[in-house]
């Protein structure tokens, strides 16, 4: 299993202070998945995917995963089998 850097379409909410939160992530066949919860936000590098940005630890489809805001785009660590 390999990790690949995948840029994704994301629906995002900006609050009046400029804080950004991902709301929905678009995946294959245009399917839209809700970001159920955000556990953590911090600057982090993804050595596996090959990038760096604001890393959100989120729950999607009841599973915990990362999504990175690499201003101006968003990427995830896609598992490739």
């Amino acid at each position, binding site marked *: 299993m390999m990790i690949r850097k995948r840029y994704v379409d994301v629906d995002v909410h900006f609050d009046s202070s400029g804080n950004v939160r991902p709301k929905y992530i678009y995946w294959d066949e245009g399917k839209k998945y809700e970001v159920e919860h955000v556990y953590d936000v911090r*600057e982090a*590098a*993804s*050595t596996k995917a*090959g*990038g*760096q940005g604001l890393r959100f630890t989120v729950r999607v489809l009841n599973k915990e995963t990362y999504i990175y805001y690499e201003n101006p785009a968003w990427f995830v660590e896609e598992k490739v089998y």
Partner: protein
Amino acid sequence: MDRVILHSDMNSFYANVECLYHPEFAGKPVAVGGSVESRHGIILAKNQEAKKYGVRTAEALWEARQKCPGLIIVPPRYSLYQRFSQKARHIYYQYSEQVEPFGLDESWIDITGSGNIVGHRTGEEIAHEIRQRVKEELGLTVSIGVSWNKIFAKFGSDYKKPDAVTVITRDNYKDIIYPQDVGDLLYVGYATRKKLRSAGIWTIGQLANTPLEFLHNRLGKMGEMLWLFAAGLDVSEVKRFNPAKKDNDLVIKSIGNSMTTPRDLVNIGDVRLVVYLLTESVGMRLREAGFLCQVVGISVRNKALASFTRQYKIGKPTDLTKEMAATAMQLFLENYDFNIDMAIRSLGVRAMALVPASTPIQVDLFTDEQQRIKQAKLEKSIDNLRRRFGNNAIRRAITLGDDKMSVLDIKSDNVIHPVGFFQQAEE
């Protein structure tokens, strides 16, 4: 009470940033090189693996490839490196307001007054925390030196690479620093090292043990400064960081060379020779830095130590030695008369109002552009020959007859005193 100063140095900076973005390069020799197409590019940075093959910064790409046939070379992405440089500085800024960047990949951090943040932790512990954070948050490694002054802190960061912390204390500095080559001391460049070695000073310890008066006689103010450095007596402040300033790096505003001539200049021929020597060096540096200048200035000082400067705005931005020297000579002729004035002791030529070399130039009806392009090619070839074989490999015929002048290698002997180091710290 001693200060606690950190010096953070990002290892193989450009190369490691590129490796972060290319996980497929893991374990391979990688370098960041300029101008691959023109075949005249040089290595700007190399990673740990490439270092093992002997790849060196500033050497030609073909040389590096010879040493390391599997070397991966990628072009530089300066905006990306700027981004990481800023991010690193923001991490440092969380530990102190006194964060002084030194180029994109280095910064001094003074945590002496950061009691409320640092608590009872030692400089070493903070250094390790910073090192860890840069690794996790930015995916890059740093080497950090900890000491009571900027010079030793910088020495510490150079000592162990990559990904390490070195503490230079009052108990160990003589063991760690003094045996090292004097060229490893900050601001001891090629020329100064040569001068010190010729005076019998080869190590930093020897420098520290040399009488101050001797150093003052041999190297002037510089000698005193270096002695202070070697003795751990540098008291220069780590300046305050201004996060609002987008670019904390010094921008080159002008490039100049000046010299006190080995003998007095008594006629126009003498002056022309020196002006050309100086302008050659300025031209080479201008071309290397990728700039054109719009104003040429001269500075003149005579035997009575009276001096003046003059400048002239030229029609077209240029980096051609021929054009700049002609302007400099013109300025001189208009402002000096050997019949009235005395012999000259010192001359300077400066290229000012710089613009990037990629700036498009408006062509006019009166100038022979073909000739200018030919001249540019010629000067570029001369640059390349000098880069490969030394600055004296090719020289103007005018310098050959004169014994004293022909041995001058202005470009190599050029010492650029970083403006930042000598500026007063802001209140």
